[in-house]
């Protein structure tokens, strides 16, 4: 409301600036030549002063005076030719009316199209100072951040903020917050598991060696920590060790309380492992359960040979169908397990090339490979 009052006052002021001169009288009309004459007169008296101060010589002053005199004469001749006569005032009245109308019409019309009159100003300090119940999550987080910036050793604060970051998908911040909480308030299974989750999510969902370390630490503190067990099994699945992963998840199902929120996640994961999800671009299948079963009964040489054949097959499939994220990660991991660092590096290079060096996937591959000790360059 206040805004509309201000807008109205401003409009009024602007309209008056147009209106008043139009309504005012024509005071002291002078011909254009008068101004010139004034300038020339000033120049003449200036000339006298300069001569008095000794800045110019009398003969120079004489010549200058003559020249100014010539200009004045020319002025007289010119002004007689160009007498202005005021013309019909009908156009003038029309223009004046249009001008007075134009100001409110243009301003209110344009503002109506462009402005957001209902949106109040929102300076940051004001937003952070208002009642927390009215604040958005972002504002609450910002407030907590401001508090922690002032008191960086408040472990409890970090502990509260960390899971919020996780939920807001601000994974790097979550990692920092969990680390600070652990450093300041000590280790706990929940914090370690949360840290692992944050690291894994920051790596695009891949359970990296670092994340594994955190989950292991969590299980050491609390063997029943469901999150840690779940993600560790996920890590097994990502490595292609699906039977082991499935076994771990089944074991979890036996131990979880009937109303545990993890139950459905585990069941979903089990279902996914049994039949690999069909994603766009037909993912390259790794060795299936039967093949692994068979491999376990072979002689070591045979098993090695079979694994290498399968890896080579995977490699070939990826050559034909390179846009398969999971396949590439499996291939890189396979080469690492087989001890073929050069080929793993090659696979990483091709994977990155397949999705483009700037893509999300390329970053994920690089991070994933780095967690296995493979880098794109020496």
């Amino acid at each position, binding site marked *: 409301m206040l805004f509309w009052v201000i807008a109205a006052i401003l409009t009024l002021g602007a309209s008056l*600036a147009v209106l008043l001169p139009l309504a005012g009288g024509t005071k002291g009309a002078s011909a254009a030549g008068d101004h010139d004459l004034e300038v020339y007169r000033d120049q003449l008296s200036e000339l006298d002063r*300069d001569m008095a101060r000794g800045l110019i010589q009398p003969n120079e002053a004489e010549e200058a005076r003559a020249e100014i005199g010539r200009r004045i004469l020319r002025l007289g001749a010119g002004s007689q030719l160009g007498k202005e006569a005021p013309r019909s005032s009908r156009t*003038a009245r029309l223009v004046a009316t249009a001008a007075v109308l134009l*100001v409110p019409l243009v301003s209110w019309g344009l503002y109506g199209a462009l402005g957001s009159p209902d949106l109040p*100003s929102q300076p940051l300090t004001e937003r952070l100072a208002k009642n927390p119940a009215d604040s958005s999550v972002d504002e609450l987080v910002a407030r907590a951040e401001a508090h922690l910036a002032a008191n960086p050793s408040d472990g409890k604060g970090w502990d509260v903020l960390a899971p919020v970051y996780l939920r807001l998908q601000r994974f790097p911040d979550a990692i920092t917050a969990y680390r600070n909480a652990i450093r300041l308030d000590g280790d706990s299974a929940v914090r370690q598991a949360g840290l692992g989750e944050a690291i894994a999510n920051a790596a695009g969902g891949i359970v990296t060696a670092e994340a594994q370390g955190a989950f292991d630490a969590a299980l050491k503190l609390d063997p029943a920590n469901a999150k840690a067990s779940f993600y560790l099994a996920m890590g097994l699945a990502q490595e292609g060790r699906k039977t082991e992963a499935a076994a771990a998840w089944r074991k979890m199902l036996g131990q979880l309380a009937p109303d545990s929120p993890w139950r459905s996640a585990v069941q979903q994961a089990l279902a996914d492992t049994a039949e690999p999800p069909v994603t766009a671009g037909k993912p390259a299948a790794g060795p299936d359960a039967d093949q692994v079963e068979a491999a376990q009964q072979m002689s070591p040489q045979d098993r090695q040979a079979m694994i290498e054949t399968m890896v080579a097959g995977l490699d070939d499939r990826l050559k034909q169908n390179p846009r398969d994220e999971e396949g590439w990660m499996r291939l890189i991991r396979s080469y690492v397990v087989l001890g073929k660092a050069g080929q793993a590096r090659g696979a990483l290079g091709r994977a990155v090339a397949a999705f483009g060096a700037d893509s999300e996937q390329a970053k994920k591959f690089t991070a994933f490979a780095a967690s296995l000790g493979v880098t794109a360059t020496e």
Partner: protein
Amino acid sequence: MVETGHFALVLAFALSLVQMLVPLVGARTGNRRLMAVGGPVAVTGFALTALSFAALATAYAGSDFSVASVWENSHSLQPMIYKITGTWGNHEGSMLLWVLILTFFGALVAVFGSNLPATLKANVLAVQGMIGAAFFLFILATSNPFIRMNPAPIEGRDLNPILQDLGLAVHPPLLYLGYVGFSICFSFSVAALIEGRIDASWARWVRPWTLVAWMFLTGGIAMGSYWAYYELGWGGFWFWDPVENASFMPWLAGTALLHSAIVMEKRSALKIWTLLLAILTFSLSLLGTFLVRSGVLTSVHAFATDPARGVFILCILTLFIGGSLALFALRASTLTAGGLFHPISREGALVLNNLFLTTATATVLVGTLYPLALEALTGGKISVGAPFFDLTFGPLMLPLLAIVPFGPLLAWKRGDIFAASQRLMAALALALAAMLTTGLFIDGASVFAALGVGLAAWLVAGALTDLAVKSGIGSVAPAVMLRRFAGLPRSVFGTALAHLGLGLTLLGIVGTLSFGTEKILTMRPGETVELSGHTLRFEGLYPQKGPNFTEDRGHFLLISDGNADGEITSAKRFYPVRQTVTTESGIRTLGLSQLYLSLGDEGNDGSVVVRLWWKPLVTLIWGGGLVMMVGAALSLLDRRLRVGAPARRRKLAAAASMSST
């Protein structure tokens, strides 16, 4: 508050429409009431624009991220000074600053223009209104700084780290005061063309405006050059970068305009020159805005690029440049010629000066636009850099600089080149001495260096000669001379200082380019390095945390004669929000010279790449610019009316050794 600012901006646009139409009609029909509308409307328009700008600045200062431009260019952790300067550290805000200055100058004309002929004032304000309306429309249509976001983000995206510097507080406002100041000269010229005549009061008004604009533009360019010098970490002070050229071209044309305006005021000659130069200068300012803002060039100045903006500015450009030049072609012939003059006279010298300066401007224009045109036509990318300008701009400047000292010593109307030369003998001797000393006694001095130092000495000594001659040196008693010196008009000091500043800048450039040394090396803590007689010890690299950045600050100890002589620090800063690294160079000024160092990449073992420069006389480059500004300010303070008193034939004038001003 934000919406009040938005509304004020829209209202200012509406007023600019009135300002461009009503006084124009009034002047055409001779209606005094309509003409009188221009003044109050210009003042109110300025007040509204100022309100709008204040609202935006408040939003920036208070980190109001519900304003899109604040969200894009600010961060809550920035120091307050950068929050405020961030207001114009982006495209939208800087355009608002542009129109703020435009309306401010318009309001000044309205308030102080009571001694102008009514029709002239009305026409000037109308042309100002046209420029204003075009830019208000541009802002509202393509770069509105008041676009809101709902819901508002909680944190901004930070100001470009390179712009988080005190330079942003000074450089753009100065530059805009310069650019936009020329709009007044442009408006006066177009108004004169519309009227078809030039009054005596016309020249009285145009000269101070040209001086103001020129003074600020000089300061803006010098400041921008110094900023680039210390912020970019390359130690270069001028890159012939298209964006720099964009500001340099109006300066060259403006310098010519300034000299023409003097002739115009004193002798009512060179009318056509003055009009044309005023139009060209402002056109080049607009072109600069176009080049920088349309995204044609990518640089730190380009902020966000948007083709719609480019097309819009191109339209503004075509309209104003094309329109004014067409008007010039139609009307220039109707203007009566002014006072006559002999080729060898102050006027003649100034015409020569104009020819050189406009040709130089054309050279820079070609060098700047050719790569763009080539890219647009053939897609080929070439870069026109220092070699081109050294070969074209340099040779044009040399003769111009050589004749500068003659100008002020020549009399109006008909001058005496031999008398002027005689008076310059001392300066010439000094210049030759400087040249020989440089060539013979400084190791490794090239011919270029010797010539450059000689030319700089010639300019400085020539400027001083001018003052000495006008005080009557040699012809009157010392006491009289002193009294005369004190009584010299301030504009004489202005001329001398501006020419002196030019010499100082030249000396700085030649000194830095010819005698500067540099070293690039890897240093470990504890190691020392020597450069041109200065020893530096690398103490180590220490991490530090700023409000919105982290940095590794390298500490270096300067050792002079075996004693510690203070510390120089240079840092590599990392701004996490923009994921940008900047270099903070370490500079120690020793006399007029500077020791400059910047950090490169870090090694694993605590070593770091260090780039070191010894830059002799480098501060003179910008110091000269400051001297030029002071000269312009002095000249501006000279409120006298000016008449160029022409000299009689030589026999009569021989006794009078000085020319009047």
